[in-house]
């Protein structure tokens, strides 16, 4: 029975639509948990952390710079690990670098990740070389030929991540938006800011947690700013999307998004009031980190919910048609 279903919410009373047994029209994202959301978190963290490392280098905040470099490198490396694990055929990861394809955010992201993780690894190596306990790795790093160029190379790498880092933090928005999932695609304006804010909060939180208080002030500022941006972007997005934004408010995804918001706002507030309290700082950093992760899990779940209910696909398209404004595409994508 091709069901005519009435929208559940009073706020969208016009959402009456027809479907094929209520079955989804589009396919849900096949990405797994925790791989994909964690990757999204780590990528954002790494991208912003490396940007912070560059800023710290310029500002002369070496302690924070060290934290940021290490965070960026670990984030990129672990993120790449999660991404590989996410692939249906991990042994074929290198196929990602087979082509350079501007129409594919996944391709661009892979190249970006490859370059960025290389840069952050170099930057971290240059920073860690002198401070790590002796080991075969440090032996290499401290070899005269290496040691002589490493600091400069590391600095250059960090500066280069000013280009790759912010993009690492925001390209994931394009990755999600460049799909047929209505909650993602229609959010392509706000999602980059949401990701940027969240990445900023994540990196700030990491900086706060792993840097002595005296040197962590920029991290705290970033955390607070990030929390503000993430919260505002999320609110704007949900408001603008209307029906299509429903999955961000309802069900499992809605719970995750609300929790994420609470953690982010709470973490941000804590960051403001924490002062020198290690406990409060720790709580703040943890809350922001958890909030950022929760946002990613919420986004993925919202995408799934958006794909699973044909309402979100049919209603906007049907409205478009009924309004006499069918979609079209300029020749040549």
């Amino acid at each position, binding site marked *: *029975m*091709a069901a005519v279903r009435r929208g559940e919410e009073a706020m969208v009373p016009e959402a009456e639509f*027809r479907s*094929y047994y209520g079955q989804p*029209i*589009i*396919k*849900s*994202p*096949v*990405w797994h948990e925790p791989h994909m959301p964690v990757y999204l978190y780590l990528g954002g963290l790494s991208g912003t952390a490396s940007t*912070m490392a560059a*800023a*710290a280098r310029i*500002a002369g*905040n070496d302690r924070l710079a060290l934290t940021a470099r290490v965070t960026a490198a670990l984030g990129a490396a672990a993120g790449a690990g999660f991404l590989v694990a996410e692939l*249906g*055929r991990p042994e*074929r*990861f290198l*196929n*990602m670098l*087979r082509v350079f*394809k501007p*129409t*594919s*955010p*996944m391709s661009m992201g892979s190249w970006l990740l490859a370059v960025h993780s290389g840069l952050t690894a170099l930057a971290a190596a240059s920073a860690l070389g002198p401070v790590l306990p002796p080991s075969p790795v440090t032996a290499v790093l401290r070899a005269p030929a290496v040691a002589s160029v490493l600091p400069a190379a590391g600095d250059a790498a960090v500066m280069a991540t*000013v280009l790759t880092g*912010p993009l690492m933090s*925001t390209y994931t*928005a*394009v990755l999600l938006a*460049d*799909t*047929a*999932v209505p909650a993602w*695609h229609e959010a*392509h304006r706000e999602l*980059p*800011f949401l*990701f*940027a804010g969240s990445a*900023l909060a994540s990196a700030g939180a990491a900086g706060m947690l792993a840097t002595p208080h005296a040197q962590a*002030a*920029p991290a705290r*500022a*970033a955390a607070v700013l990030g929390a503000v*941006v993430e919260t505002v972007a999320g609110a704007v997005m949900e408001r603008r999307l209307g029906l299509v934004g429903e999955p961000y408010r309802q069900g499992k995804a809605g719970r995750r998004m609300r929790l994420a918001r609470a953690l982010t706002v709470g973490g941000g507030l804590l960051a403001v009031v924490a002062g020198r309290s290690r406990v409060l700082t720790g709580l703040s950093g943890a809350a922001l980190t958890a909030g950022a992760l929760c946002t990613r899990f919420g986004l993925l779940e919202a995408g799934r919910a958006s*794909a699973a209910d044909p309402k979100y696909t*049919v209603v906007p398209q*049907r409205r*478009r*048609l009924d309004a006499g404004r*069918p*979609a*079209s*595409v*300029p020749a040549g*994508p």
Partner: protein
Amino acid sequence: MAERMGFFTDTSVCIGCKACEVACKEWNDVPDDGFVFRATSYDNTGALGADSWRHVAFIEQSRPIRREREQAGPEGGLDGLDVLGELGGPGAPGGSDGPGGPGGPGGPDGQEGVEGWLMSSDVCKHCTHAACLDVCPTGALFRTEFGTVVVQADVCNGCGYCVPACPYGVIDRRERDGRAFKCTMCYDRQLGGLEPACAKACPTDSIQFGPLDELRARAEERVERLRGEGRARARLYGADPDDGVGGDGAFFLLLDDPEVYGLPPDPVVTTRDLPAMWRWAAGAALSLAGAVAVSFATAGRGRGWRR
């Protein structure tokens, strides 16, 4: 490039035999999709997917009278044993238009309940602007010399990105295998000068294969004829080169709204908006860099101040 080839699926003559589904699986060695009774009319396939490259949808259309009947609720005091007399009594649902009454049993023309049974064999649309192809990061998806979109199984690395990109929900990842699969419009058969297996097997020519231009012309004639016969809701779907995917290589003649068949009413290739997405992302990236700078600027001052 050779002439662009396509499918025209004329659902007005589809008899739901599913020969297309079987022929497709036989030729392409597609595994079974599980043995699940779905209780959705005669459709136990459900949807297109990695293991179903053709899917016949069954839509039972009922007249409003049934809904009224359903809402009338169960008649009190009658169990299964006296069912023979159940509707004869006064006040029983539908009893007012009994035999001899206007219209006889059931609705005004005696066709209470079922009005029609639509069947339609769905397939990959082989879009002019194919999102799956656009977003594939490995080049596993490519456009053939016949204008069709095909996955190269040996290149696909299973990232699954094509899956949510498709506005029709066609391509899917086979979990136990990790790769993405969909209709190839029997690329191998086409290379050998044969028509795709589904079109070959279709007994009523509901699935027609040929040069896309010819098919479009034929479809126009067909839809005109059906409308002339009073089937006002007959329409072509995916035949317009100016639509959101630039027209489909596999298009349809439908007898009702597309969403009734599980098709999106007005699909868009997601990459149409990709430039805008990148612009917004770049803006956000710049803002992010700025925000980091601001953080250091404000906090840096603070540190200096504390010193």
